[in-house]
Structures are given as structure tokens and as C-alpha cells.
């Protein structure tokens, strides 16, 4: 069951885990946020293989964060793993419900409709005073299997959980991509009518993969919420979705590795741009994205997992 790629994934995870004790606090938060955004990019990878780019994925990222926050405040759940499960299920369920409508759309309409839903959630959260409206609310530090965590050690444990979870989810997604169902996505992108004439309903796969990408984004949102200790509607703003799409474009045809690597590069570019030019960091981000799209002729059309030009 384990292939060369999976061993490389486990090795990378081990390296990051080992580095946990050496890294200063700010790097722990930066790296953990990057890994979490990498998890969202994994979800995007599934949809982009089927030729669909959601401009509203931040909705599930935000839902996951709020689910983790409310889970600990209202339901008294404090364990990290339970909160992640709760956030994933909540966001996955929301993905399934929104998927009921969005499964019929393609191209720009799919992008626009997913953005519309994310802005509806953003508007509702902005308005809800008992959820702290635009200030959001603070998420108490979680516990791990009963062990309470405070200060920087809490960051190390949360970072370690993030690394393990990322490796697990990345392995899960790469395993899925090797199954028969994993091949249907690219087939839909290349010729959807033919897929339905082979006896498989494209909308059903897109619905399933949309819900799965929602679950992944929800888990990522919960991780960041517990890491930062605060959630606010800004997590669901359309610019955040733009950042996730930026990562997916950066990943290009890199598959699992591409998504995680791209997330790190984005956080690094973001951090450097923030330091170097505090007022013009968006110019640097925009420039990087434009160069990626212009210089990368690959674009979305060649998101197949392997090069097939063996003429």
C-alpha cells in the first residue's frame, strides 16, 4: 500500500516534527498557518483537477474556525482532536448542502456562485452580535487527550498536531487520486459528456469532491482558530479565498507536494513582503501571482497528476 511518494511524505513530516523543538514561536505560527492553508489547497486540488475553481472556499475555512470556537465555548468540548472532527464535519456538511446547488455549475459561474455563498456567510457573521460580529471572539486554548497546554509549548503541540494531520490528509488525498474515482475528475474536465455516456454522473462526483474540499478547509480553519486563539468574519472574506486560489495556481501540476510547497512559499512571500514593504505588500503578492500565470503556460488545463506526453 505504501509507495515511494508516501514514504517521502512521511519523511518530510518527521523532519518537521523534529524541527518543532528548535523553532521560535513566530515561525511555529507561520509554519502551522502555512500547513493549514496547504490543507485547504489540497481540497482545491481535487476541484481544480475537475476544472472547477471555487472563489468562495474561505466560507468553509471560516465555518471550521467558528465551529471549533463555538464547540469549545458553547458545547464545552476542549480536546483538539474532537474539535477538529466537529469542525470538519460541520464544514463538510455545509459543503454537502451548498454542493446540492453548485454541482450543476461550471467555469466562471461555479466560481461566482461559490463566492456569492461565501459573502452571504460573511454578511451574516458580520451582523451577528452574539458572535462578536466583526471583532469575532477568542477561542480558548484546547487540550490534547486531557493534557492542558499553555504558552509556547502549546504552540509546539499544536504545530505537531498540524504536521501529523497534514501528512495524514495529504496521504489520504494522494491515495484517493490513485483510485479509479480519482481519475474521473480530470476526465470530467477534459470531456464531461463522455463521462456521462460511460455511465457516471459528473454532478455526483463534483458534489462529493466539493463536500470533501469543504471538510478539508473546515479542519484547516479550526487549526488556525486554535493556533491564533481568535476567529473573526475576515476568515471568510473573498480576499482570503483569493489567497487559497493563489496557492493552488502556484502549486500548478505539483499535486500534493505542489500544494504544500506553494502554501509555504505564499506565507514566506507574505512575511517578507510584510517586512520589506509594509505598505505595498499586496503589490508584491499581485506581481508574483501575475508572473506565475503569465510565465506558466501550463495554467489550469494541464492539472493532470502526471505528464502524459509519451508520443
Amino acid at each position, binding site marked *: 500500500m505504501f509507495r515511494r511518494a508516501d514514504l517521502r511524505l512521511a519523511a518530510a513530516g518527521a523532519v518537521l516534527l523534529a524541527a518543532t523543538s528548535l523553532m521560535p514561536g513566530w515561525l511555529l505560527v507561520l509554519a502551522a498557518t502555512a500547513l493549514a492553508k496547504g490543507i485547504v489547497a489540497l481540497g482545491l486540488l481535487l476541484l481544480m483537477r475537475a476544472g472547477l475553481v471555487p472563489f468562495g472556499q474561505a466560507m468553509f475555512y471560516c465555518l471550521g474556525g467558528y465551529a471549533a470556537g463555538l464547540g469549545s465555548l458553547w458545547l464545552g468540548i476542549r480536546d483538539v482532536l474532537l474539535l477538529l472532527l466537529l469542525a470538519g464535519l460541520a464544514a463538510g456538511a455545509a459543503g454537502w448542502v451548498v454542493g446540492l446547488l453548485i454541482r450543476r455549475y461550471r*467555469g*466562471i459561474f461555479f466560481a461566482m456562485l461559490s*463566492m*456569492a455563498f461565501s459573502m452571504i456567510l460573511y454578511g451574516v457573521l458580520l*451582523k451577528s452580535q452574539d458572535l462578536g460580529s466583526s471583532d469575532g471572539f477568542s477561542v480558548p486554548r484546547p487540550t490534547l487527550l486531557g493534557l492542558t497546554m499553555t504558552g509556547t509549548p502549546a504552540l509546539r503541540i499544536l504545530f505537531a498536531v498540524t504536521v501529523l494531520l497534514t501528512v495524514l490528509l495529504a496521504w489520504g488525498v494522494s491515495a484517493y487520486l490513485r483510485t479509479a474515482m480519482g481519475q474521473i475528475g480530470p476526465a470530467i474536465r477534459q470531456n464531461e459528456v463522455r463521462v456521462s455516456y460511460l455511465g457516471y454522473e459528473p454532478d455526483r462526483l463534483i458534489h462529493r469532491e466539493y463536500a470533501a474540499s469543504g471538510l478539508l478547509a473546515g479542519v484547516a480553519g479550526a487549526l488556525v482558530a486554535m493556533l491564533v486563539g481568535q476567529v473573526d468574519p475576515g476568515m471568510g472574506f473573498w480576499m482570503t479565498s*483569493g489567497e487559497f486560489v493563489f496557492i493552488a495556481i502556484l502549486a500548478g501540476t505539483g499535486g500534493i507536494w505542489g500544494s504544500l510547497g506553494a502554501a509555504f512559499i505564499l506565507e514566506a512571500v507574505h512575511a517578507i513582503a510584510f517586512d520589506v514593504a509594509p505598505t505595498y505588500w*499586496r503589490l508584491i*503578492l499581485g506581481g508574483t*501571482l501575475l508572473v506565475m*500565470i503569465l510565465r506558466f503556460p501550463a495554467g489550469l488545463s494541464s492539472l493532470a497528476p502526471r505528464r502524459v506526453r509519451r508520443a
Partner: protein
Amino acid sequence: MSTLIAIAVDGAIHGAWLFLVAVGLTLVFGVMKILNIAHGNLYAIGAYAAATALGYWFASHPPSAAALAIQVGAALAAGLVLGLLLEVAVLRHLHGRDEVSVALATYALLLILDDVMLMIWGTDPQSAAAPYLLLGASRIAGMRFNNYEFLVMGLAILVGLLIWWVLTRTGTGRRLTAVIHDREMAAAMGINVRAVHVATFVAGACLAALGGAFTAPMIPVAPGIGAEIIVVTFAVVVIGGMGSIPGAAVGALVVGLARAAAVHLYPPAEVFIVYAVMAGVLCFRPNGLFPQAAVRRI
């Protein structure tokens, strides 16, 4: 009864403004299949250009109707320069790429242009209120309305008719429609598609800048006004049907009236009424109210 009239008038005013701001976006998508996420920046630059020009002129002249000419001039200048620059420098290289990649490229342009505007005009807002009070006020259903907003409504109707006339009654219009429906066929029939693309994008930029220039007197022109209008113009264009000019007009009116109704009847809903309407319309008309004919694939 007066609430209904108020909703109608407010809805019409807001709808006309939305049409003026959104029509350039749907024109560019119709002809070039480009969803220009940086459309908001073209609007903002139009506003900044007008504010600067008005500020410069009225520093030494009394308020006069010259303001309207200055606004139109500033908008067309900004639209021409920026439209050409973006089309030649960026969009030309994206010819033939899939719709979503091109949209993402314009998202990158949004990030870049936002900071470029910050470099040029800085953070403090520019105000150009001179023309706003020029035309006095009029009373409808016991409420006083500023005539400038009716001027903007008139301008929107004029622009709509102008585009309709160009598209249906002139040679360039027919060539434009040909490119809208089938770019390859139009090229095969000898239409210089490249020229049509450049002309369309510049026209789209000028329309956006015009929207900004005529909004400048109503609001202080400050960083971020471009980003504010992006999502609502998408809603208008998607509701109307991507690429359809009459669709944009109907979409703008629908959104305008929905927002006015929310404000008068249930204010807290104002935050998400536009997106709820958009999701609602798309549930029943998946490609908007005036969808373009789909080509048979097999």
C-alpha cells in the same frame, strides 16, 4: 404608499448607478470572455482622475457646469490610458487561455493596481463635491432628492442607449456582436478580432472610469473604493446573464430595488440581500436572466 414610491425612486437611483458601474464589466466579458476582477480599480482610477481634475479646476474657478465636461474628460482619458496599458501589457499574452486563469490574472492586477493608486494618490481621501450641489434639489412624495443623482440616472440611461445603438445599428456593432457569438467564425470572415478586443477593453475601461468619475462627487475618493464595488457588480452581471447588456440593465434594477426594499423594510438584511438575490436567481436561471445561446457540443 409613500414608502413604495421611496423604494421605487431609491431603487431606480441605485440601480442606474449600478448599471453605469457594471455595464463595462459585462461588455468586456461578452466580447473577450474575460471576467475583469480589476474592473473595480478602473472605476477607482476614474474617480481619482475626476477628483484631481475637479480639485485642480475649481481651485481657481467658481462652481459651474464645466464640472460635467471635466468629469467625462477625466474618465475617458483615464479609461483610454489604463485600458490600452492593461490590454497590451497583460491581456494580450493571455489570449486563448481558459476563462478562470484570465480571471485570476485580473485578480493579480487588482492587487497591483490597488497599491499603485496608493503610491500615486496616498492614503488621504480626495473630495470633489463641487458638482454635487450644482443642480439643487427636487421633492418627490414629500422627500427632498438631490438632482445630481437624477443626472447620474440620466447618464446611465444615455450610456445604455448609446451601447444599444452602437451594437445594433452600426457596422462596428455588428462586428462586435459577431465576435461575441463566435470568435473563430468572426476571424474567418475577416474581422480583425485583435482590434475589436483592444477597442472593447478600452471601451470597458472608459465605462468603468465614467462610473467612478460621476461617483467621485458623492463620496470621498479613498483607497479601497474599488474593492467595495467588485462583488456587487459581479452580482449585477451574473443575475443579468454574463455578456448581456440588457441583462446588466435588468440585473442592476433588480439589485437596486432589492437593496432599497431591504433598507426601507428590514434594514439589518442590507448586508447580504444582494448575494441572496444572486443565489436565488441562479437557482432558477442557472445562466442568468438573459443567457447567451449555448453551442451544441456533440
